[in-house]
């Protein structure tokens, strides 16, 4: 285990300090409101992938409660991905929804029709039809198109920015560490397993649960057969990296041994029978997915062996790349100071056979069991923090990511407050 020359990962980023931290940002209603303004109305937010817009006219909506916004993302007639506020220009009604305004909508169409008074908009946002247009005063339809949202695509991931004028382009915002993934065959991964949940905890509490491995051998002890469980020494992450507001955690197997290379008696029977497990299939047999053919940025620490890299993209988007030829994402959408909507998606290359599909099913099932364990702790953490019994907490070097995340949130809130006081530069 090689740590940086400073002796610790945290010491390598001295601006973080090593002191106790507060999680007031996860229980304070005032700070929650500020996060909406300072972060969710300013940062680039991933809302999905181009795979969800297969055709011209394909669209989906996304509610971003923290910014009190809803957006519609679509593929226009030129094939471009565009975003608009999901708000009718007539009386402010939510334009697209299914069953209830709080739900989302998706589909394929050429025009969007408001359910309220039937105003219709084209895929370029222009108002095409206003009912009884002659009854309006000094009315020009050209003045009442949908309000565009800044929208950009990186490696097939669709991002929006709700700021009037984004401070950075998407690529600038992502920075060199995240864009180091460029060239990973995301487009090859078309077999999608999506899950959603409403969670009784602040969004950062769940994000924290997935950005350190200090808990892994304790909370997830059962992910290892009993001989491998260890409650006294556990597991240490061999590589951390921070870049701007983003973080990477990279691992190289359980104490250096990739799971698929362990002895059969050290695995669960289903893993042996299916030749697949928590981390994926045992046989990576597509050339594009072999480690030597992946861009080096997927394993920024150059770990050998390498197993998983977790890219935490500020504020609420996470990509986990698995050496076993698949990836998953998490997104956390705050809905109140103590609740959020959580989305996770597993992406595999399209199965070529029943065997491969079964192997993906094993990986998806095992990964979800671990996710359930993480989710189960969250309302307990929220309750503990809200009790106010403790207001300063220690973080180890293994939790540098948690320290960094809350620091970045505080920095963005401070920037916003400064800007409110003195005006935008």
């Amino acid at each position, binding site marked *: 285990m090689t740590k940086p020359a400073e002796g610790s990962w945290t010491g390598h980023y001295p601006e973080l300090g090593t002191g106790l931290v507060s999680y007031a940002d996860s229980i304070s209603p005032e700070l929650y409101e500020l996060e909406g303004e300072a972060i969710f109305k300013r940062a680039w937010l991933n809302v999905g992938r181009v795979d969800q817009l297969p055709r011209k006219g394909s669209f989906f909506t996304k509610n971003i409660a923290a910014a009190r916004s809803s957006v519609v993302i679509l593929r226009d007639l030129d094939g471009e991905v565009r975003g608009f506020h999901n708000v009718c220009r007539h009386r402010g009604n939510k334009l697209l929804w299914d069953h209830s305004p709080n739900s989302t909508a998706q589909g394929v169409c050429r025009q969007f029709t408001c359910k309220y008074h039937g105003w219709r908009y084209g895929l370029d946002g222009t108002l095409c039809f206003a009912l009884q247009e002659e009854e309006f005063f000094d009315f020009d339809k050209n003045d009442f198109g949908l309000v565009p949202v800044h929208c950009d695509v990186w490696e097939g991931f669709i991002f929006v920015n709700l700021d009037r004028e984004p401070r950075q382009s998407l690529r600038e915002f992502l920075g060199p560490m995240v864009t180091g993934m460029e060239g990973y065959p995301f487009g090859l991964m078309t*077999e*999608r*397993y*999506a*899950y*959603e*949940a409403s969670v009784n905890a602040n969004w950062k509490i769940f994000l924290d649960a997935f950005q350190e491995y200090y808990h892994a051998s304790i909370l997830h002890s*059962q*992910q290892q057969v009993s001989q491998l469980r260890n409650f006294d020494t556990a597991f240490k992450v061999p590589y951390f990296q921070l870049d701007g507001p983003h973080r990477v955690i990279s691992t190289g197997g359980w104490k250096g041994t990739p799971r698929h290379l362990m002895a059969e008696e050290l695995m*669960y*029977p*289903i893993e042996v*029978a*299916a030749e697949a497990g928590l981390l994926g299939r045992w046989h990576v047999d597509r050339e594009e997915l072999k480690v030597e053919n992946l861009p080096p940025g997927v394993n920024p620490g150059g770990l050998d062996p390498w197993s998983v890299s977790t890219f935490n993209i500020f504020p609420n988007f996470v990509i986990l790349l698995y050496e076993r030829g698949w990836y998953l994402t998490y997104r956390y959408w705050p809905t109140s100071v103590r609740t959020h909507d*959580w989305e996770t*998606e597993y992406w595999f290359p399209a*199965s*070529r*056979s*029943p*065997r*491969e*599909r*079964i192997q993906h*099913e*094993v990986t*998806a*099932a*095992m990964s*979800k*069991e671990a*996710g*359930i*364990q993480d*989710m*189960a702790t*969250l*309302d307990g953490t929220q309750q503990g923090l809200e009790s106010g019994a403790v207001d300063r907490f220690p973080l180890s070097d293994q939790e540098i990511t948690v320290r960094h995340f809350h620091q970045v949130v505080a920095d963005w809130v401070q920037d916003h407050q400064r800007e409110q006081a003195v005006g935008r530069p």
Partner: protein
Amino acid sequence: MSTPLLPEAFAGLEPFAAAGWCLATERERYSKRLDSRMPELQELYDAAFPRFREMVDHLDQFPLDDLPERETNLLYLVYSLIQVSLAVDMWGQPEVIDSGNAMYFRTVEPRP
């Protein structure tokens, strides 16, 4: 004798197909696992798990996007068996240990 649901080679597993374990969605499979008692899960595991590779080998003779109906049922039974094996081998109970009210399901998944 009712119409067989599974390929002939797996006639011995018909009672489990008849008991509703050939389920197309993860939500249904996971829910059935949670709604079952351990002896029921163990019974399915004991009968089907030793034949896991055999089932996969049989299914692999067919293209995934053009499985006959009985093979599709068998595939869904294999998916259920994956769920059941985790209950039996990992947790020793139908639900994830200490999972409280943590619950979520797939909203999108490949078919079959």
